[in-house]
């Protein structure tokens, strides 16, 4: 893949990580969920 396109993907990914919160709604296809962000005892 062209080098600058690779860099762009990583930049997108880094921006996604900085989004914060346990539900990253910046992406329509994937959300990372915090397991500890579920109301449970343990």
């Amino acid at each position, binding site marked *: 893949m062209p080098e600058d396109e690779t860099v762009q993907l990583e930049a997108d990914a880094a921006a996604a990580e900085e989004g*914060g*919160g*346990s*539900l990253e*709604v910046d992406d*329509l296809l994937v*959300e990372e*969920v*915090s*397991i*500890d*962000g*579920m*109301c*449970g*005892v*343990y």
Partner: protein
Amino acid sequence: MSVDVPTQPLVLKDRFKQGLAAPICLTWELTYACNLACVHCLSSSGRRDPNELTTAEAMGVIDEMAALQVFYVNVGGGEPMVRADFFDLLSYAVGRKVGVKFSTNGTRISAPRAQQLAAMDYVDIQISVDGADAPTNDAVRGEGSFAAARRAMDNLAAAGFGQFKISVVMTRQNVPQLDALAGLAEHYGAQLRLTRLRPSGRGADTWEQLHPTAAQQRDLYHWLIDRPDVLTGDSFFHLSALGDPLEGLNLCGAGRVVCLIDPVGDVYACPFVIHDEFLAGSVRDRGGFAEVWAHSPLFEELRSPQSAGACASCGSFDACQGGCMAAKFFTGLPLDGPDPECVLGHGETALAALGAHAPLPSVRTDHSRAVQVRLGRKG
């Protein structure tokens, strides 16, 4: 002419409100037996129930977890390690690829047991303490309990267990110790986890004295905002009305993404509502746990759109979602209204309107032992 229909983004939170194929945080209390007698125990534990699931039945539950593809189960009690078959069940679960995260007071984590645990994969441990020092902790959990927890932590560290969690229920007495608690976790390279006291189980009797003040809640909120590394199990989402949302789903997951299996196999919406009102069924019913999770009328009701009720006109409802169902239920407040600890004070108003002698829900069974751990003074 075709109409351009915008693709609706799938908001995960809304999907969670409608329920999932299997719980994400399934709590399984293995026994009502406990060798401690914490004043605020959410399950009113102490004495084993004569009707607890047998080893074979428990393994059947694990089989169901595996079939449902529950990724891991949160095990507690009472004190789960007092069950004679605890390590058999642990091994069985791990062997079926069901991860286990268990919560313990640490009294049974001897050096050899720590080594046994360190050798297991897919097992996470959470040690409960409710203060940064023995006087604060033991006032709630009993004399010697802090020392026992520290021994367990030392044993796990010596055995090379790896990272464990230290879990603290926030009280009026330990909110001033937040930094010290963080220091304790740092000492062991452990993760600190702070959770909310609910007026559940024995917590109902001690709620008035123990629950943090409004000012302390604000301090706690700001401290948590500054420390995203501290876990909360989404326990304080009612505080999200104070400003930026805290980490987590910020909604009640009971019956939607979490539920409880109790020691006799009864399934409740969550561990904080062990009460007939929130009993969904039993793993001993035909169809087992899977049937209860998928089709119990209680869970279907919880998964349907919930009314904001008295909170509908409040601008903060989106942030706090009306708070914790258990906190409302056991203080006698309606579920479609403010949390008793509503940061805007609406809960206090609602409680005052109830009056001092409003009947509170009583619990059908209480496994407490006769021994008292009196709410003590900090030494």
